[in-house]
């Protein structure tokens, strides 16, 4: 497969979206939403990361193997986090 080329217009659009999202996440952090502050912060960070990966890093236009590698990396990070948290969050249960 030949190399994917992304248009300047797309790059600019993504750049502006990222700036807007940064502003949005900063402003939202001032509201006291309890546990949802963290949820929102992480959600927006994930959206920003997805935009960067998909367009700046051309992942959207690359061959399938790149998608598999990417998904594998994310999945393995989640395995690390959730299996460990499984221990910490259930320690108090045992009686």
């Amino acid at each position, binding site marked *: 497969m030949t190399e994917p080329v992304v248009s300047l217009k797309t790059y600019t659009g993504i750049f502006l979206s990222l700036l807007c999202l940064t502003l949005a996440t900063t402003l939202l*952090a001032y509201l006291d939403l309890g546990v949802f502050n963290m949820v929102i912060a992480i959600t927006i960070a994930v959206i920003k990361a997805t935009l960067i990966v998909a367009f700046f890093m051309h992942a959207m236009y690359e061959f399938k193997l790149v998608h598999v590698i990417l998904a594998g990396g994310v999945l393995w990070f989640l395995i690390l986090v959730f299996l460990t948290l499984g221990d910490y969050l259930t320690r108090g249960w045992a009686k």
Partner: protein
Amino acid sequence: MSELRSLAVREQFATADQQRETATVGMWVFLVTEVMFFGGLFMTHIVYRLLHTAAFDRGSADMSIVLGSTNTAVLISSSFTMALAVHAAQEGKWRRLAGFLFATMLIGSVFLGIKFAEYYQHYREHQVPGFWFETSDPDPGGLQMFFVYYFAMTGLHALHMIIGIGVLAVLLFRSGLERFTSAYHNPVVIAGLYWHFVDIVWVFLFAIFYLPGLHL
């Protein structure tokens, strides 16, 4: 001779496409190792945030949200110029390529400048674990843990930035020698992947260190 060689497909490959795809696969796999590398810190950070939630929030309250969000915007801008550099390389416009590479390095340096200014401020406020740490926090261990992670993770990120700027400097030098053409510019694309990845790490660091604790 060297001119020809840099244009050529290396001997272990059959075609230029094979060479490009192999390099792309290699770089993405490398980025996965980086995900796991930072992932170990993110995971233990999550556990300690659970064990010391209040102290971590108080730690975040000591961060400067203005500098943090400014720096996020700065780094995103550098990613944008990096993307433009890749585009210029693909079109074979080496002067534009050199310009954008230089801009990326410059903006990256601005980021590091702001970051080190923040570090200095923390140092003055005795918030550097292991060197000068004083606190009257109710959970001093928890607060220190926050700063341990803050410095470890942003420090490792800064180290990645410095390496990235070094890589870009080499590319800038080579682009000045007109080594890259529309047919051969893979190193620029690969370096771009690295630079964008480092940007993504910061997006998450910003979310976990700066955003909480604004309304304590």
